């Protein structure tokens, strides 16, 4: 018995001596290229800073419905230590008090926030406290297939396209025999650049919906008309594709508005089509507009290892970000890294940061997910011709307050 105890004790001491703090980091799984990149970042940390400070990082992606799984795990007390927070659900999580405010850490370490694009820092602030640091960002640009444009003898899209000239070129393609020039998704966030560039806005100053205002409505009408009236666009599923980038890569459409995430996807899986791609800025209406999508790393408020989690977070948005930018084709949220990013393909996306709007719709309760589902569903109806824009806008106006209440 005593011998057994001694063995136990020895094992316990050994384990104790070499014990490392395990920090679990979670997000949604990316495509194979992105997965390889994040693994490389994790390995780099574990072999350098992690080794010195006794921290081991484990990447545990959550497949499927990220937000649902994350929220369930957080409520059960088994959430990851550090995780992705999409700007679109940020306020909901911040209000639920599951994210750790980072201000003291930033102050104590003199962590340089000025190196980040200000809009990306602002995007993750709630009640003047910082709850996450942008890991990267994306904007939308206009992708088109030069080969198809050549074949049907239509002039290329340019950086100075207006919505009218854009539509004209699509119609030329269609007239020349290319059935579906454009792929469009029935997602609310994809309409936002249209609304902004038409001079509309998403919400009024009192946070009620502004989608019924003339300019916003005109933008929605134009978006739907592309599908139902001019018949130059279809949704990806109608083309037999899962998403816009796939429709573009498989040449089922000639034009789509997509983000830099498609670069990595195409380079990896469709290198030949990628060579045919031209990428220009989004068409403009009264003004220029694009979407800014961004995701932050945030620390779980319930984590027992806050300091270690902060160390990991710091790495992920500095050295880690360099690895991501080089490997996965994302845009750096840090200006110093962005300045070194000379990839010519990405420049048009960086440019979008100057005039883009972040994908975050302010509401009185911070909750937008119900409204987003409902509007998305209405868009599907609109695409299918089940509703007119007037009817849809009326439904939105009548129910909006119910959708965003607690």
């Amino acid at each position: 018995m005593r011998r057994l105890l001694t063995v136990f004790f020895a094992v316990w001491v050994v384990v104790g001596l070499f014990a490392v703090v395990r920090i679990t980091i979670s997000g949604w799984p990316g495509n194979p290229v992105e997965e390889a990149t994040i693994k490389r970042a994790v390995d780099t940390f574990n072999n350098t800073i992690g080794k010195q400070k006794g921290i081991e990082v484990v990447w545990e992606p959550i497949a499927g419905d990220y937000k649902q799984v994350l929220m369930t795990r957080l409520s059960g007390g088994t959430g990851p230590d550090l995780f992705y927070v999409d700007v679109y659900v940020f306020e909901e999580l911040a209000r639920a008090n599951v994210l750790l405010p980072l201000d003291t850490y930033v102050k104590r370490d003199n962590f340089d926030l000025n190196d980040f694009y200000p809009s990306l820092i602002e995007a993750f602030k709630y009640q003047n406290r910082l709850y996450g640091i942008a890991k990267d960002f994306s904007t939308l640009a206009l992708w088109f297939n030069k080969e198809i444009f050549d074949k049907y003898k239509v002039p290329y899209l340019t950086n100075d396209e207006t919505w009218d000239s854009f539509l004209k070129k699509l119609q030329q393609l269609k007239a020349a025999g290319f059935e579906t020039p454009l792929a469009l998704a029935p997602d609310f966030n994809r309409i936002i650049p249209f609304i902004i560039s038409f001079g509309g806005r998403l919400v009024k100053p009192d946070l009620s919906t502004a989608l019924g205002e003339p300019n916003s409505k005109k933008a929605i009408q134009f978006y739907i008309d592309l599908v139902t009236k001019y018949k130059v666009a279809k949704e990806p599923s109608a083309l037999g594709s899962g998403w816009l980038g796939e429709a573009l890569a498989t040449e089922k459409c000639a034009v789509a508005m997509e983000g830099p995430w498609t670069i990595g996807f195409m380079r990896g899986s469709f290198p030949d089509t990628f060579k045919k791609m031209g990428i220009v800025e989004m068409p403009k209406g009264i003004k220029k507009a694009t979407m800014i999508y961004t995701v932050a790393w945030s620390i779980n408020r319930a984590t027992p290892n806050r300091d270690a989690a902060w160390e990991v977070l710091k790495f992920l948005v500095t050295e880690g970000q360099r690895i991501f930018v080089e490997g996965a084709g994302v845009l750096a949220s840090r200006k110093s890294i962005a300045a070194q990013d000379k990839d010519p393909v990405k420049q048009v996306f960086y440019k979008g940061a100057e005039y883009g709007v972040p994908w975050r719709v302010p509401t009185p309760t911070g909750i937008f997910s119900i409204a987003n589902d409902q509007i998305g569903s209405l868009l599907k109806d609109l695409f299918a011709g089940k509703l007119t824009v007037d009817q849809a806008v009326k439904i939105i106006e009548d129910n909006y307050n119910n959708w965003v209440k607690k």
Partner: protein
Amino acid sequence: MKGLRLKYRTKEAIVGYLFAAPVIVSVLVFAIYPIFAAFYYSLTDYQPLEARKFMYVVDPYGALELHTGILREEAGNYTLDELLANFDPIQFVQLDLGVNLDDTEKELVKRYFDSASLISDFREGKLPERLKVSEFMKRYMRAYGHKFSKYVPKFVGLQNFEDIFSDKLFYTSFWNAFLYSLVVVPIQTLLAIILAVAANSKIKGVGFFKAVFFLPAITSSAALSMVFMLLYSKPGVINKILVAIFGKFGFQPIDYLNEPSIALFAIMAMNIWSTAGYFMVTFLAGLQDIPSSIYEAAKIDGANKFQMFWKITMPLLRPQIVFVSIMGTIGCMQVFDQIYFLVRNLRNITISYYIYKNAFEYGKMGYASALAVILFAVILILSLIQRKLIKEQY
């Protein structure tokens, strides 16, 4: 020992229950308790994300540094009054400690929070480094500290039910589930009987057919959904075949799952196909129970196959029909996975998917529980009606 001498029957009962204990306990824990809990939560505004709010371990120094903007090592440079002047207990607890408060809790904090003692501990460096929210509150509330030890969801009475009855999506999703059952149950039951009769006949390779009929039932619904997603897609096989046959009559390919008025029916067809084989097994068992002498007597009386089916087979399968239609209705009213995988338009969702969305995506657990209670009541009533309509006879 005399006092412990039990009657034989009692002993036997104890041993019996001991043997059954694992099942009894697991049923109590995983079935009975959740059912009652759902009833309770349906009367509250249960917020899953807040369930653990008093159990978080907090770092009081960090929280105070955040609140005051003064680092702990600098705190000594300020007087108590200076620090107190900028201290707001409610904001401190809500934002910096990270505990969302409801109105009564806010009132308690406002009245009884001992700001002075907290701040002086901060100045003198006497704060604990790390402790649970509940312990922290016990320590720094002059009274009612125990109110902050366990999360109790707010009791809202029938509010959730009132909201449900003015929720359009409730009616849509409920009607969809109902329509789904109305179409699927009769067809799948009839189809299952036909399959069973076919599988029961004495033809060559009957085992092979049985296996083929049963195969969809043992395939994962996720895999089936993926296959049907391809079949139903616009450039999919079904459209190709239909265009090949009816193309000359002007048939246009349909995007089955994205067309709001067709999507639900497409899923119904898939479900009928996949579950008919499963219920076939029940009817097969029923068919084996029907004595062949009855069929022989009918033959002698000059009955044809069709008459024998309607006059003998169907009536004698009555118990199985009751069983299958009740189980089918329950399953159909709760249909979830195919909807989850295939439906993209809120117009086509069913009630259990709506429950899921509310509970896990919107974080409205109380509302979701209330929806679940209504679904439970409806299924109960439907089952009772079915039992009344198709009386069991033995």
